[in-house]
């Protein structure tokens, strides 16, 4: 059995999440938010995304999302603004 035989599984916002295969942070955020994204992480519709991403407790800058490949066992948090304070 090789690594290619099973899909990578990450912990996404506290829950197990199976990835379809090699997935970048950009792909994951587009999927989760339901918005099309440019390679630099900005929304294709020209609006603002209001989303940030941390992998294993480290913030990944928007411009680096497309180069960040998520691997088995990664803990990924996707956050946004909510009412508070």
């Amino acid at each position, binding site marked *: 059995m090789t690594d290619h035989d099973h899909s990578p599984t990450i912990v996404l916002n506290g829950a197990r999440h199976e990835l379809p295969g090699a997935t970048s942070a950009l792909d994951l955020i587009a999927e989760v938010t339901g918005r099309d994204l440019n390679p630099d992480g900005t929304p294709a519709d020209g609006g603002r995304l*209001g989303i*940030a991403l941390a992998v294993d407790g480290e913030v990944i*800058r928007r411009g680096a999302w497309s180069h960040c490949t998520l691997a088995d066992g990664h803990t990924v*948090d*996707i956050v946004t*603004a*909510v*009412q*508070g304070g």
Partner: protein
Amino acid sequence: MTWTIDDVEMSSRLVMGTGGASSLSILEDALVASGTELTTVAMRRFDAESRDSVFTMLQRLGIRVLPNTAGCYTARDAVLTARLAREALETNWVKLEVIADEDTLLPDPIELFAAAEELVLDGFTVFAYTNDDPALAKRLEDAGVAVVMPAGAPIGSGLGILNPHNIETIVSRAQVPVILDAGVGTASDAALAMELGCAAVLLASAVTRAHDALAMARAMALAVEAGQLAAGAGRIPKRPLALASSPFDGMVAAQ
């Protein structure tokens, strides 16, 4: 008169938080009625169910966001939350909140100070939510925070300003703006904060949890303006006895 932080000029001295509202539409009405130009938000995990977000609404209303680190107990968590907020909301401004326990929600001074130092070094404009302690306020200012925000009373308590003397002391010694944060229950509390010399007042629950949020938002806007005018107007000194305001000359007397 306007006030400025980081070259950003604001007219309203009421900073209204978005917490505690029962719906986004009530919140929107209250924010508009308050006239606020700056509002706090918290950072939490994205939930696909709530795509109609507060961030979208604030962009539409043209109100600047001040992300907070609410719920953090350690400097480490607060710094991570601040960095996530900077990335998500594209702002260097952060309301730094590091609490000691969930019953009082009072700031943990040790963790707060450590986080403030790290965030200042990292280029953040730090609005430090702190205790009503003049010594700690001064230490935070020396560490480079942009704004010192002492609590009038515990968050959401509505107890008003429990130690006006300390707030006045903090204001008198600060070279940075002081915003009274937390504890405001009603309009007179907000007016008092301004009379004590604060640059602005930050509140949320007092409006969002009021029976009529819209009316209270308007009341707070007026109170902040009234308090600021009064602070600059030069109040009369307090006296132990009366000082007549009508002349005694020319009085008529009964036969």
